[in-house]
């Protein structure tokens, strides 16, 4: 099967008997954008990390285009990671590297010739609207800019799978917009499979091909955003629908 296939993922953290993920299954087709939502501690970030093998699952399987990712080791695993763009909640930029160097890291690790790598890095920066800041240091950027550089760094690897771990969570509300725009544009391009963890229901409605609701490590509900938020089958779904209603009411009131 093409795209991402997750089967029966289970994960405990050492010293804790409570599972973070329980028998989790998911499939993401190429070009599809799946939004994962759920309360804090539901295991959303853990799921992304397990998929990227940053965390080891206790049980379960992860396939990418039919390749058993859960069995990869060493250099093969690292090579797999280079096909995945991961945007963290925290910016995770390397402070001792310029904006361009941060974005060059992926192409260079992939062994792409220098000129081509630079082109690719600059193009990625241009896509997030920061080409003019290529020679700046991360410390000289605003929070939104930093997060966009993190996105550009992920894009510069020309990934086939993008994992977004609450990319706007640590941002000032005023800066959230530029990141959202960036993400929405990428989703619209449908150039790669995207798995997005977010708390923002409206944003999910806007970009998602599919929404997955998680609670206590389990998938509780899944569906297209319109259907899921209109006719929720679970309590969690209903809570999100209420949030949407309140948000809409607030929006209409303010309007």
């Amino acid at each position, binding site marked *: 099967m093409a795209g991402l296939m997750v089967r029966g993922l*289970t994960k*405990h953290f*050492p*010293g804790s*008997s409570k599972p973070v993920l329980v028998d989790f299954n998911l499939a993401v087709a190429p070009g599809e954008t799946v939004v994962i939502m759920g309360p804090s501690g539901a295991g959303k970030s853990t799921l992304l*990390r397990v998929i*990227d*093998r*940053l*965390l*080891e*699952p*206790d*049980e379960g399987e992860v396939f990418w285009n039919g390749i058993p990712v859960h069995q990869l080791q060493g*250099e*093969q695993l*690292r*090579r*797999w*990671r*280079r096909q*995945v763009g*991961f945007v*963290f909640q*925290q*910016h*995770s*930029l*390397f*402070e*001792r*590297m*310029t904006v361009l*160097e941060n974005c*060059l*890291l*992926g192409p*260079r*690790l*992939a*062994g*792409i*010739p*220098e*000129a*081509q*790598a630079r082109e690719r890095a600059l193009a990625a920066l241009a896509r997030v609207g920061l080409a003019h800041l290529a*020679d700046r240091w991360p410390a000289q950027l605003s929070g939104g800019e930093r997060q966009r550089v993190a996105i550009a*760094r992920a894009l510069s*690897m020309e990934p086939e799978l993008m994992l977004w771990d609450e990319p706007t969570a640590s941002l000032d509300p005023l800066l959230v917009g530029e990141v959202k725009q960036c993400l929405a544009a990428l989703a619209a391009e449908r150039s790669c499979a995207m798995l997005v963890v977010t708390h923002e229901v409206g944003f999910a409605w806007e970009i998602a091909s599919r929404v997955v609701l998680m609670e206590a490590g389990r998938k509780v509900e899944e569906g297209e955003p319109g259907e899921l938020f209109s006719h929720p089958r679970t309590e969690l779904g209903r809570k999100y629908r209420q949030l949407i209603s309140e948000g809409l009411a607030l929006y209409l009131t303010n309007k």
Partner: protein
Amino acid sequence: MAVVTVAAGGLLARGATEAFLARLVEGYLGEENSFDLLVQIHTADAEAGRQALAELLARELPGTRIKVGPALGGQQNYFLTIPAERKTARDLGRLDALLARLSGFSGYTVLMHPVVTVSRVHPAFRPQIQEAASSLSGVKLWFWHGDDLVLLLENPEESAQVSSRLQRLLQRSQVYRLELPVPLAAGELSRLADGVAARLNAGEGGEGTARYQPVPLNGTRSSGGLNGSWGAGDLEQALRAARQVLQLYVTRVELRFPEATNLRSGDRILLVPADLAGEGADAGSQVAAVVAQVTEVASDGTDGQALVVKGQWNGGEAARVFAMKDDRVGAEIGSATIDSPRLKLIAALNRAEQLLTSAQSSGQELPQVLDELEAALRGVEKLLDRVDILFQNSPVEEKDQLLLTLALRVLTEELGLTGGENGERAGTALGEDMAGLDRERLMRLRKGIERLQQQSALADPSQLAPLLVDLKGLSGSLRDLNDGQLGASLLSLEQYLQASTAAGSHLEWRGPAGLAEERLREAVAAELAEAAETLPASARITSLPAGIIQPDARTQLLTVVRSAGRLVNFLSVAVLTLLVLLFDQATVIAAWKVVRRAKQRHVRANRSWERVLVGLRGACERLAPAIYGVCTGALLAGGGSFVGLVLNAAGGRGGDVTTPAGLAQGTAGAFADLGACQLPLIVGALLGLLVALAAERLSPVPEEQIWAGESLGLSYRQILEEIVIPTGRPGLYQLLLAVSRTLFTRARRDRGVRSQAVKRRPGGLYGGTSRGRGPTGDGGTGRERNVEGEGKAWQVSW
């Protein structure tokens, strides 16, 4: 690398400190071995003293150079450099006697190097120490300087072993001293000393053991002097005075042996004038037998000293030496130089007499005659001075030569000297001879010369007649003195003064170290037939060392220098270790902790027992950074110190100052003391532990960066080298990594974004070919092969 950095830093600091301080020492003492002695003369006599010193050295130690030093504390200092050929046991052993002749002389210090000095050797242990010094390897020669035995070594490396062996010898024995509140009669003291020794030895178990022996009290300390505090009475002081006078007249023999001799102190030899033909007994039979008794043999056995104890020496200064055994003459064993003050005085008097007679008969100008006369009588003047000093210091009211006669007679009676009538006769004859050296006559002679000097311009040669009479009389008295009697008397006096136990309140015993005071107190009390507790508390018991090992003056100062150097070295090593730990290891340990946590994420544990095991393993792994910190700190500081010590020792500056052996070793002893690394080792381990515990605070490593690095496909090593360490403090690792880091620095320099000196390693970490495969190419897919090819292209583009 870090250890070398720490060692080099420590060494540099230590070297700079030692060099600076050693230069200060050289400023005070001159360069090593540039001076051998520091002679001190009272400033009041400095000018005359210097002249006398120069004359004395020119005569006795020709070639010796004098440098006038500073005058300090009423003493004028003179630095002497003795020529190498004169640095013999015989010449150096004579220094005490030679320099004592100088007026105003107050002492001298040995500056030779390398030497080991056993200072304040108790007289009871002199023979043992002397014997040990003779048998020790690495000792070039030894000589006595007052109560100090000075051992001149072959080379500085011998210092440690010579010192330690002497130290072991000294530590084995001790002198126990009892000071009684009331003086006891001589006989009682003697009985008490013997009785206590017997009780102590009986307590040691077994008959025939004599581990504790009484020490003769009188004449045992050279510092005792005429008015010494050793409980001597008038008789003893009179005997000491007599000994001094005898020492002026006794005929001394300087012995030289072509091969190391077996002669020992006390052996007798036959002396035959060198110009006399014949062999051994034949030669001896042709002249009146002149027998000498050996008083000292140098450590190398090639020379020695003796006193004429039988016969009258009237030959020249050179003599042949024959061995004697049981009054039979053996083979010729060497040559000798005879030093007879008596003959010299007679020669001087004869010369003076001739000059005066000639002046009287020829009417020669008196001033010129007087100059020559004065030169001739210089020896006589010395005699006059000595006699003056002797009588001024005499404790007896009646200050005339009868005291000496009386003393000698008493001595003869007490000892029976050479036995019965002969002894008495010898003593009496000597007393009469000494009486012949009439002090009145000597004084008259001096006054006559002084008078002539004052009135030389007006003097009439007819006024010389009484002076001539005095000279003749004195010369006659000297001729009558018997060399053999003088020598034998002197030896007898020495023997008596050493062996006798005069009345007094002190007693000493020599024996093994470690005798409890209580045991001695009980033995004394039992011998006095008193209970121990009734022995007056004021009866003090003290223990004295057999001797004390001391380094030479230079070594003492350089020891301080080296101590300062070691302290600086230790502090530098500690500081450098801390810096390396802070700047490098803290980052490494912090990264280790973060990476450990990251790795922990990859552990699969789907069963509960697996999770328990994982938890346990995690706990153990949490200890690992602390253990690493301890080991690294210990390695840095201990290794740095050790390397420093080894390099220092190799450079000739090693040595330990914490032991007597090491203390006496001097500056050039080449050994590295591992014990000296212990403290740095411990301090380094503690610093390492502290840094390990606080590593993540000292050098924070954001965990997100590890996540991000991993997600980009970097290995842990790459994350460490490319991200964590460059982000950490600028330490040694960063400097080293600048060579191997390849990802950005070159490009950055090219762009002029930031200049950073980086040396590109061809085919480096990401160049793709140095390890035989590209960063992503480990075989497999077409894309991978393509990537590998691109990797090469990228490398070329650099």
